């Protein structure tokens, strides 16, 4: 059973617009959430994270929002750029084995010029 779900396999956005990538989790023990970005033929790279004691974390064009009651987080990219086109993985960790993340299946973002 998936504990971290990214229900949209793909997302297409126009350059300059906002990209919103969503992630849901089921394990209430998760207390730390991360987003990774992956280009083809490369390893994933860490993008941004958020602790469960916060509901928002911002880093430049990237903002992650956490709604603990809904067990939902989202990554906002504003404005979107063609170079943002990649696969984005949501990950969560906490509880038993707390520093080992559980990954979602990823969302492929395409930003059109």
């Amino acid at each position: 059973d998936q504990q971290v779900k990214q229900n949209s396999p793909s997302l297409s956005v126009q350059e300059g617009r906002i990209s919103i990538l969503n992630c849901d989790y089921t394990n209430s023990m998760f207390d730390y959430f991360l987003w990774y970005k992956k280009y083809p033929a490369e390893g994933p790279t860490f993008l941004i994270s958020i602790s469960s004691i916060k509901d928002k974390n911002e880093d430049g064009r990237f903002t992650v929002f956490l709604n603990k009651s809904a067990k939902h987080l989202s990554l906002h990219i504003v404005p979107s750029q063609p170079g943002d086109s990649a696969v984005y993985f949501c990950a969560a960790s906490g509880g038993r084995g707390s520093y080992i993340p559980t990954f979602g299946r990823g969302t492929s973002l395409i930003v059109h010029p």
Partner: protein
Amino acid sequence: DAGITQSPRHKVTETGTPVTLRCHQTENHRYMYWYRQDPGHGLRLIHYSYGVKDTDKGEVSDGYSVSRSKTEDFLLTLESATSSQTSVYFCAIREPHRREQFFGPGTRLTVL
């Protein structure tokens, strides 16, 4: 870039042959991980290590073994490769007390 390399980067092998993938880090980090990435499955943990000679199983460890005789090297072995082990394999490292991992460039393995 975190100092992580993986070798080989690409390998084609036949069913039943042994295969060893190597992950090498220059960061002296204690924690190392092996993942596989498959379409529709995201990243799944195979094995991890929390120190020299200290390893444990992950979610999809069947058919895989690991060894860590030095801090800098973490080896993943497929004793007898099967076609279901065709995948892209990623190694990752993590600093103590931090949650984010840093990944290597990956090894694409094809088992015919």
